[in-house]
């Protein structure tokens, strides 16, 4: 295998001009780049250090609204107690009556499917 001296001799024979130029590449590197790189790469490979609980984002909006309400002096509501009309001005204006048609006397004639057990 060639050594460095052989490589220098070859270059001098090819061009004294090129062999006389310094081997220092004139580009500069941002300070601390090499110190930071290993950790940065490990971070990319290992993935995020923290995991988010399952379903976290599903409840997130409701949880934030609960806290906002609590902060504004409203009663502290749990997410299950919070009804849509409490956070929607439009829903507040709509009647709670179900608009579907029900035949007259339906419940008077209603027969349960299951009968109570005797005895």
């Amino acid at each position, binding site marked *: *295998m060639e050594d460095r001296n052989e490589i220098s001799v070859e270059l001098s024979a090819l*061009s004294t001009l*090129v062999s006389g*130029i310094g081997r220092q*590449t*004139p*580009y500069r590197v941002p300070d601390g780049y090499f110190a930071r790189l290993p950790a*940065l*790469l490990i971070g990319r490979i290992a993935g995020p250090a923290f995991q988010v609980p399952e379903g976290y984002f599903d409840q997130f909006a409701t949880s934030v609204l609960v806290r906002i309400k609590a902060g504004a002096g409203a009663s502290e509501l749990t997410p299950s107690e919070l009804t849509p009309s409490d956070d929607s001005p439009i829903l507040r204006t709509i009647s709670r009556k179900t608009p579907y048609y029900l035949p007259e006397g339906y419940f008077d004639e209603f027969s349960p499917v299951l009968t109570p057990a005797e005895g």
Partner: protein
Amino acid sequence: MGVTIQDTELLLQFRDPATREKAFTAIIRKYQEKLYWHIRRIVVEHEDANDVLQNVFIRVWNGLDNFREDSQLYTWLYRIATNECLSYLEQQKRKSSASLDEMESGLSNKVIADKYFDPNKLEWKLQLAIQQLPEKQRVVFTLRYYDEMPYEEMSRVLDTSEGALKASYHHAVKKIEDYILNR
């Protein structure tokens, strides 16, 4: 020629899940600067060199288990780095629909745009001259001139015969000399 004793130890540690990350960190620390400068001389800008270098080490992480140790680790790393550089340049060419000449002048413009560029300094003229070389010849020149890589090793990095590499390097030096003398 196989891996050095120290690289053998690093490879063993890498293959053990308990010490894998520690070994990988050690490999990065050992080779990052050499690989960075090899890449930087080809792509010129730091941001591009950083992107390519990170891609290289990601590939190393994913491929090191399959490294056969029939060459030095250093040679294998240089091979990945060189391929990533050439792929990167090819990608840039496709993105900008640039011709080969336009790519070369683009890289020369990046050299000139460097904050510390000094047209009166030979080291900067050399960087401009390097960008005039065809891509593979650029790699041959930088590996021999800056990394002082023997032809035998370069042949494994570039998968090219030693004779072809020697001819390429000799032509590169002459072209560089002509460029500098005539600017």
